[in-house]
């Protein structure tokens, strides 16, 4: 009995309807009026109708969503954070069940109870936070999702991985551990895993958010290869450019609803942007700062990572007041350790970080905070806020020792609360009551709260690590504006971000970090994106 169908099924490859794009758009228009006709359309690999999903907290994440994906097409699902894209895809892949609505696979109505069932129907999803066990090998991870009871038959799985990866030209060593692979390759493993399960519809949730530009190109190449093999690919993104670059058709979601489905060839960036955020006009790249005196001088900094090996190797840089220095780089190249050393959270082996004639290296965080360093952390839940304290207490954490918020160790609750009210308004934090626990806020609002606290205490240096992670376009804009405002006031900003667009938009200078070293520096005026992208991957040319 063939347990696996090793090679991609030939017959599906014949069903490619993409040749005539106008015909496709016609079908789509038809959807809106005559749903019953089009769901039977055999060209749809999957078609969902009237999907509504309400989370247990009452939030309607999907509201009467209808859309379809054709066989052999790349379909982008575009929308800002919180639009409901992930929710919809989790429903398709069996991770969530909808309140109402129907799903049709190959024209037949189906019930997808769990992820296994979805895979049986040929639908598989690569989650945004990759779902691989880091300490397992590639083979073991693939074996996990292939139900074969009894003895582990890793040899069969290994052969299958090799066959599938050869077929698509995806190099992978089946016996490496996931933790030794860069993120781009981990994603590849996830795709291979789905192919090993003979999936026909692949859902990729924000796959580019963790990749460097070159890795994005590579991913898009893979996606096109999948399409050639007759697979349907749904790719979630909040970046208009990417949707245009990779897909045949684009469905835009906003606030839990489908706004429209368009042919990629018949639209453009401006139109899409205005559909994604109603009436949104993207701002142009930032203005230049006016660098003043030196705010921070880092020299020969060596910092060990958790493994005990050096993660930051002799890093030198300086930040002036009134400028933003962006540190670009693939996550895991020492940025985290560098930030932790600068903020006093990690021991420095050697080197100095000098601010106002005072060496901050190996000083406790409290000392560094008092010197005027603010820290927007990437790990907001663990480091940025105390979840079980109230909003106003969290906002007061760093100023509670100063007058007028406390005097003789007695807290002035009224002052603390009125400050909270003020910050909630200024930073547009959606909170009903400043006395409510922070844990009652959504992720985006917790981010805003932390940023509000860090940007409002008159610091002279701001270390910002992914300051807009998890925020939608408007909220990100607000934080960018705030950072630029502070720069204009003479504050120095050290910006770490995985989002290259963000770095380019805000920074006066960009330093590239690779393998614990600063390998290059660019002025924002003379930026060569190609070279920057290559440097991020360690290429020196």
């Amino acid at each position, binding site marked *: 009995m063939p347990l696996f169908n090793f090679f991609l099924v030939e017959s599906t490859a014949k069903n490619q309807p993409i040749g005539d794009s106008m015909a496709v758009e016609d079908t789509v228009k038809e959807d809106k009026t005559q749903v019953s006709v089009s769901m039977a359309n055999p060209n749809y690999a999957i078609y969902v109708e009237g999907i509504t999903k309400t989370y247990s907290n009452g939030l309607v994440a999907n509201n009467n969503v209808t859309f379809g994906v054709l066989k052999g097409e790349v379909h982008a699902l575009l929308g800002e954070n919180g639009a409901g894209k992930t929710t919809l895809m989790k429903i398709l892949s069996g991770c969530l069940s909808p309140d109402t609505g129907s799903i049709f696979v190959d024209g037949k109505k189906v019930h997808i109870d769990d*992820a296994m069932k979805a895979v049986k129907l040929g639908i598989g999803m690569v989650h945004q936070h990759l*779902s691989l066990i880091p*300490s397992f090998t590639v083979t073991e991870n693939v074996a996990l*999702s292939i139900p074969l009871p009894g003895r*582990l038959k890793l040899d069969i799985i290994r052969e299958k991985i090799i066959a599938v990866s050869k077929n698509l030209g995806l190099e992978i060593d089946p016996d490496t551990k996931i933790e030794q692979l860069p993120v781009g390759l981990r994603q590849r493993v996830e795709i291979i895993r789905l192919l090993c399960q003979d999936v026909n519809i692949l859902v990729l949730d924000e796959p580019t958010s963790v990749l460097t530009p070159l890795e994005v190109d590579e991913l898009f190449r893979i996606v096109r290869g999948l399409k050639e093999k007759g697979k349907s690919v749904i790719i979630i993104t909040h970046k208009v450019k990417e949707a245009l670059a990779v897909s045949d058709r684009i469905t835009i979601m906003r606030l839990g609803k489908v706004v429209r489905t368009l042919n990629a060839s018949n639209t453009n960036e401006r139109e899409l942007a205005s559909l994604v955020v109603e009436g949104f006009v993207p701002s142009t790249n930032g203005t230049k700062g006016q660098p003043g005196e030196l705010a921070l001088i880092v020299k020969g900094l060596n910092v060990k990572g958790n493994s005990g090996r050096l993660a930051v190797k002799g890093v030198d840089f300086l930040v002036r007041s009134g400028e933003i220095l962006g540190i670009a780089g693939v996550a895991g190249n020492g940025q985290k350790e560098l930030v932790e050393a600068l903020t006093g959270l990690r021991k420095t082996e050697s080197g100095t970080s000098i601010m106002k004639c005072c060496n901050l290296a190996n000083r406790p965080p409290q000392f560094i905070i008092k010197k005027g360093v603010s820290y927007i952390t990437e790990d907001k839940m663990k480091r940025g806020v105390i979840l079980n304290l109230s909003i106003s207490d969290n906002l007061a954490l760093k100023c509670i020792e100063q007058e007028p918020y406390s005097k003789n160790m007695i807290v002035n609750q009224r002052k603390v609360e009125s400050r909270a009210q003020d910050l909630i308004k200024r930073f547009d934090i959606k909170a009903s009551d400043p006395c409510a626990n922070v844990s009652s806020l959504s992720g985006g609002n917790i981010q805003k709260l932390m940023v509000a606290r860090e940007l409002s205490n008159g610091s002279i240096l701001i270390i910002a690590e992914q300051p807009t992670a998890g925020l939608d376009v408007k909220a990100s804009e607000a934080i960018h504006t705030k950072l630029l405002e502070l720069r204009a006031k003479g504050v120095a900003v050290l910006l770490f971000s995985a989002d290259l667009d963000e770095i380019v938009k805000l920074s006066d200078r960009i330093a590239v970090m690779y393998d614990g070293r600063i390998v290059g520096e660019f002025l924002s005026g003379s930026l060569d994106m190609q070279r920057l992208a290559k440097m991020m991957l360690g290429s020196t040319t």
Partner: protein
Amino acid sequence: MTGLTIAIAFAASCVTFACPLLLASLGETVVERGGILNLGIEGAMLIGAFSGFLGAYFTGVLWVGLLTAMIGGIASVLLFGVLVVRFNLDQVVSGLAINLLASGVALYFLRVAFPGGGYPHLNFLFQPFAVPLLSQIPVVGPIVFNQPGFFYLAIVLVPIVFYLIYRTTFGLRLRSVGEDPRIASYVGINVSRIRYTSLVLEGALVGLAGAFVTLSQFNTFDTRLTTGLGFIAVSIVILGRWNPAGALIGSLIFGSTEALSFWGTAFLTGPQASSLAQLLTILPYVTTLVALVVGGRMSKGPSALGAPYAKE
């Protein structure tokens, strides 16, 4: 007695003392591989010892005692399992609660079963079984091949548990659940089912470990007989790096300290004897601390060990 015979007798005793520790630590290895830290193993072993004793005492059949011990062990571990898997309560607190509950339950039913007070005795025991031929080997024979059947079972279980963890689909899933239950559930693994299965397995093994104490090692029941054995089994798992072979080595080390303290209490003479004996009884616990410091530092356990996990 010559020095050699004493040494052999002592070594055999070390092996005997290692037996319940090995059974229990094998069980604990399995559940910890699935991400559950069961400190309630201490209480489960007590219940296993007690229910095994009751079963054998009232039916007069040792094998029935074996069965009731396993049932008692499984019931206690499953109760713990419901607390931590179904209700997602703190694993450490739940384990300690089970231990308190177990000693209360055991004392109560001891008095219900034997209202007269005093400690009841069994007239029969699982005797050491001399393996034909092998037990004739000089030195090694009497140490290793003249042990109760429990011991041979435990030894056979070492490769079996190893195979289960590393060479079966169940083992792969178990380890994935212990590394990251959320990811495991994403790829379609039923986390609760895997964890309950591992807990049932542990319950049976811990029950057997308890039965060994009351049906083979001693012929009576006292709540103090198993004291500390469960906690020691937990540290053996850490010292053995969550590996059955490591559990075997760890059990032999701790079995030896147990034997030493037992022999010391029994054979020391002289004016300082009682204080020295007391000192020896803390030896296993001192070793536990040392093992935790040494073993805990060099080994990294399953990533999700002890972490709460609620289904989305």
